[in-house]
């Protein structure tokens, strides 16, 4: 009996819920507007805080007078951020547009705005550099730093003897996270110096210490709640200086303070994805096998680093003879934060556009060149070549690659609108994150889970409920999931696609542990062999025979019920890591207007065992749409003259709308061999390929590479003009 009691998922064919399309359990709260986000918390007496930021890229703060703000009736507190604190040593130098200077808390938001307006700030404007692409200009200003160089094999020799050699330039501009719920907190001090925080965070269990340190209190006195969170994408792990400001102003005034970033500050200060540009030479032999890679990439992650590191280029593939160098530009731009799958989308663009252009140079079908080189992805993970091959076949069928593909620039159509196909592939780890949970079975048979994780829109609650309901043979409605509080067992921050693996593994372990105890009680009471028992359809059964109902079994637990702990990750097969993924784009490009339209986009994705196919597919749809955004329209625009982030608003920061995405086809690659791998995270991988796949499709349509993403009409026309000998 004991030897059968191993943690594991059940046979795939027996699953009632796991792997099916299940509606999310918090769907009604979200869709009906009842879900309370941090920005919605308005406990009685709450003060509203607004921010003064510096809009210079580089300046010295000469004077800051907040007294006029304090005199406004209704203004309750003014907080000066470290950058605005002229008394602090070395203070006063501002390095990027959007730097926080002061916050004003007032009875009403409009009064807080009055307060911000009343503050007098005077600056001496200094020289700045915000062009992240112009390496030579940055070098001339001494604003570069070498961040790595390494090589293997004999690159020069291999390039000399290669049958086909291509030299290219590619890039991707910086983007912002653009969380629709901005970063922010609602802070309220309660009795006994307890700080009650609602935070828009991906890191419920990890925030207390970040607040406690700067506030000089014990982490045990910090309560963190995040029942719902309006988007994070990797940017919401920290308490942040504005969180500390809210807590301090709440302390000073004795009232709750809500400080949510305004839209401009959200875009400027709360995280960006660093830019990347590359000069690359690569060569292939007569079969199309790439034999040499020589590259130098650069970009900026802000004034103090955070650019794309040297590792990871070339992306997914590695070649026998390979040299790579990376340089960081220290620009006067806002700092970076992890952006969904960091920095894979950039690596993918910088690598797979070059491979596609090499295919164009060889006059070969890009599909064949990627296929020929799949063996060279084995260094990332041994199973990847086979996974990619299977996924490429599926994707090609879904998009009609064989029927529609034409050599680059050879669309047979005579009109101005040219059609093309492109592809790219990607990989991600997605191993389970740390997670502890308590599962409680009440004497009446109802089930609750407590976990200090968070649902950032990925479906964490639903995945937990499905895991427990499947294990106990209960309907979803019998399960109550409690998360979003640091009062529950600690769980890792949700970043890097580690949450679904983390929570499903831990909950399966807790649930199986509980179930085995219940089976023992049932076996003793009903005189059956515990080893034959299973939980199905609200009953405990032995083979085909019903032994008792779940409720009767639960009563055996006594009035206290049963509480079991689940932990993870563990090496027990419930979870694993490392996925592939192949995407293909079918686009139309108007060579007269430069407008690119997505006709069809195919995403084929493996991710091990699927808990909920509906929410899993949503992750892929969403990732592809985010990808279309950064491939075609979305970018931070820095004004070279003033050094300002000039499109830090939703009017000018262009995101696709519902009519801009074309037809998206999502296919989850899930043969039994994937099911048996256990759960692997999914949030990051499908957002990686769109930039390269769409750029490659545009190159296939036009026969001309638009080197830098996003492929705005202006850049498309410039590339076409340059190809015809005109000005770029």
């Amino acid at each position, binding site marked *: 009996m004991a030897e059968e009691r191993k943690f594991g998922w059940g046979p795939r064919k027996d699953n009632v819920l796991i792997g099916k399309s299940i509606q999310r359990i918090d769907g009604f709260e979200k*869709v009906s*507007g009842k879900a309370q986000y941090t920005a919605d918390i308005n406990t009685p007496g709450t003060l509203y805080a607004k921010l003064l930021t510096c809009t210079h890229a580089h300046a010295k703060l000469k004077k800051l007078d907040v007294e006029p703000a304090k005199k406004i009736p209704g203004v309750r507190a003014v907080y000066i951020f470290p950058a605005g604190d002229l008394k602090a040593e070395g203070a006063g130098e501002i390095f990027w547009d959007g730097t926080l200077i002061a916050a004003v808390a007032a009875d009403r938001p409009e009064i807080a705005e009055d307060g911000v307006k009343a503050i007098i700030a005077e600056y001496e404007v200094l020289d700045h550099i915000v062009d992240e692409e112009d390496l030579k200009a940055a070098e001339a200003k001494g604003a570069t730093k070498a961040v790595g160089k390494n090589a293997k094999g004999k690159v020069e020799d291999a390039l000399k003897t290669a049958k086909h050699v291509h030299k290219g330039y590619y890039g991707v501009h910086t983007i912002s996270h653009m969380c629709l719920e901005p970063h922010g907190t609602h802070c309220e001090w309660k009795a006994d110096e307890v700080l009650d925080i609602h935070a828009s965070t991906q890191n419920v269990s990890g925030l207390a210490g970040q607040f406690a340190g700067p506030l000089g209190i014990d982490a045990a006195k910090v309560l963190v709640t995040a029942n719902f969170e309006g988007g994070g994408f990797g940017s919401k792990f920290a308490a942040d200086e504005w969180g500390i400001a809210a807590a301090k102003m709440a302390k000073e005034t004795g009232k709750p303070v809500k400080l949510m970033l305004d839209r401009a500050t959200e875009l400027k200060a709360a995280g960006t994805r660093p830019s990347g540009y590359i000069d690359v030479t690569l060569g292939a032999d007569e079969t199309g096998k790439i034999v040499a890679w020589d590259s130098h990439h650069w970009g900026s992650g802000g004034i103090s680093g955070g650019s794309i590191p040297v590792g990871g280029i070339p992306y997914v593939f590695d070649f026998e003879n390979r040299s790579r160098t990376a340089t960081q530009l220290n620009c006067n731009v806002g700092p970076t934060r992890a952006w969904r799958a960091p920095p894979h989308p950039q690596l993918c663009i910088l690598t797979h556009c070059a491979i596609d252009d090499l295919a164009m140079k060889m006059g070969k079908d890009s599909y064949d060149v990627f296929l020929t080189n799949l063996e060279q992805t084995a260094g990332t993970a041994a199973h990847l070549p086979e996974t990619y091959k299977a996924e490429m076949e599926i994707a090609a069928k879904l998009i009609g690659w064989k029927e529609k593909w034409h050599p680059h620039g050879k669309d047979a159509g005579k009109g101005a609108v040219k059609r093309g196909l492109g592809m790219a592939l990607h990989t991600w780890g997605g191993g389970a994150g740390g997670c502890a949970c308590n599962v409680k079975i009440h004497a009446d048979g109802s089930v609750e889970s407590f976990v200090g994780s968070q649902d950032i829109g990925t479906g964490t609650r639903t995945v937990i409920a499905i895991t427990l309901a499947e294990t106990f043979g209960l309907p979803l409605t019998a399960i109550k999931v409690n998360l979003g509080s640091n009062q529950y067992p600690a769980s890792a921050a949700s970043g890097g696609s580690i949450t679904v693996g983390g929570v499903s593994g831990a909950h399966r372990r807790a649930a199986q542990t509980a179930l085995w105890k219940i089976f023992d009680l049932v076996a003793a009471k009903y005189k059956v062999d515990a080893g034959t028992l299973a939980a199905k359809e609200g009953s405990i059964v032995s083979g085909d025979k019903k032994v008792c109902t779940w409720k009767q079994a639960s009563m055996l637990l006594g009035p206290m019920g049963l509480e079991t702990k689940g932990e993870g990750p563990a090496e027990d097969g419930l979870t694993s890591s490392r996925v592939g993924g192949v995407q293909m784009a079918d686009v139309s490009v108007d060579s007269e207007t430069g407008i690119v339209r997505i006709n069809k986009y195919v995403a084929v994705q493996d991710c091990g065992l699927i808990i909920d196919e509906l929410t899993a597919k949503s992750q892929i749809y969403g990732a592809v749409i985010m990808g279309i955004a950064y491939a075609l329209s979305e970018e931070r625009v820095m004004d070279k003259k003033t050094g300002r982030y000039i499109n830090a608003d939703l009017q000018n920061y262009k995101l696709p709308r519902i009519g801009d995405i074309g037809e998206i086809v999502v296919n989850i690659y899930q043969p039994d061999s994937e099911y048996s791998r256990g759960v692997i995270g999914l949030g990051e991988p499908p957002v990686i390929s769109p930039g390269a796949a769409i750029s490659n499709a545009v190159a296939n349509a036009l026969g001309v590479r638009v080197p830098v993403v996003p492929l705005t009409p202006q850049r498309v026309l410039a590339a076409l003009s340059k190809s015809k000998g005109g000005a770029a």
Partner: protein
Amino acid sequence: MRDRETQERYGPDVSRRSFLKGSGVAVAATAIATAAEEALAQDKKAASAASSSKAQDVELTINGEVHKLKLEPRVTLLDAIRNDCHLTGCKEVCTTKNCGACTVMIDGKAVYACTRLAIAEQGKKITTVEALSAGGKVDPVIPCFIKHDATQCGYCTPGFVVATRAFLNEHPKATLEEIQKGLGGNLCRCGTYDGVAKCALELAKGGA
């Protein structure tokens, strides 16, 4: 001082208040479908009511309930609904009527609450997302959004739901192309458009 002026033009919320005063032309010129019905006359009325900057009595009729408030004329409809009436389904995201997270219905038409003044909306029938599941009656848009998983983080979702309801009221037999145009006034960052479109199409086919 130079920097304060800069802050007024480029700064976040400060700019939107000044922007509101002169937004008439911008309203007329906007191509965004949900805002298409915004009327210049309303702005003129708002401007005249807003001539005194002192807080005054404002009565808003939201979801059939009258809210008696004391507000300065510059307070937006969105702030009044969220902060003073405590109906937080509609969200503040862009404050520049680009994203639709603040969508409510006024006299049955979808509008952006972020760029309207509360004082100018007195005497009108304001409907927020909360009304679509009030009193035990759930609007079919809501279960259909859930069915197609047209929500991820959920922050844009209530605005999308209200926009979808208002759109389907006017276009009960809408085609996919019409849906894509009609719901083009709302933005989602997580990428739930596929589910939203499927939901609207299903309701249009089945009779919304």
